[in-house]
């Protein structure tokens, strides 16, 4: 996703987020090009609201979105005890069930 505006064209790229049901999380619907907020609103309604597929829309200029390039925060120290991945409950659970069954008999 680039934040640069194409100098040859007058339009701004807008990202549209749509809500399918009241209370549901907004999902990215797609993007559109429009010269200003009024046009962005009209086109968003046309593209993402016309068929009753959305109960609400958020329209955001792409430039307003802060893009984080490397969301992964590197582990520079050995602190893998903090990590919860790789700690499989599956085997432990199976053993516990086995034990419970034996005790019950």
């Amino acid at each position, binding site marked *: 996703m680039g934040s640069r505006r194409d100098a040859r064209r007058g339009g701004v790229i807008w990202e549209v987020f749509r809500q399918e049901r009241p209370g549901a999380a907004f999902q990215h619907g797609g993007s559109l090009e429009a010269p200003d907020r*009024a046009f962005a609103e*009209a086109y968003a*309604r*046309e593209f993402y609201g*016309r068929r009753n597929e959305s109960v609400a829309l958020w329209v955001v200029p792409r430039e307003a979105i802060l893009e984080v390039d490397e969301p992964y925060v590197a582990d520079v120290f050995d602190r893998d005890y903090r990590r919860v991945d790789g700690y499989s409950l599956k085997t432990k659970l199976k053993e516990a069930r086995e034990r419970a069954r034996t005790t019950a008999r």
Partner: protein
Amino acid sequence: MSAHAPPLAETLLAIADDELVLGWRDSEWTGIAPLLEEDVALSSIAQGEVGHARALYELVARERETTADELAFERRPEEYVSSPLVEFRLVPDWARTIARRYLYETADAIRIETLKGSDDADVAGLAAKIEREEAYHRLHAEMWAERLRDEPRFAAALEELWPYVLGLVEPGDRGELAHRIGREPQYAVERGAHDDGWPALWDEMTSVRRSIPGATW
């Protein structure tokens, strides 16, 4: 509505013809509008107008014991009562297209408001349904009119089309239309005479229906 208002079915037929022909003309922009987004938006508005025409023709058809399709596609060209305003072929002139849309939608709002007050419950109900969609057509037209306001070509187009749009509404409503547009009321071009481009448009619009007369589609 003026004291000498025409019978309801005649009024409905005139509005239906306007909507059908304008929908047709605006659909000529499909694939060639200045922006892809606008292409989709205008095409969908054009389709909306054809849908309104269909619903209005159905009300007229009930009274005249015919069908909406026959009214739309099986009359002789001289039997249509559309205004020359909607018959003008305006592609590829975007300024004139927007001027027409803006003037037309403003006049149409006045006509639909009158129909909403009709004693006929079907007519009033349909007018209320149409109005809900026309509100978006009007937003679109006003947004573009605002954007093109300072363009000399747009101002010239408004000047040129103004007498034609006055003819869309009853004489008693012309002052209100002038007020909403912000222009002086002046002589109106009444519906009756068609634009020179009308026969060719009619020919194409009805060509499929006429290609196999009497067919069940």
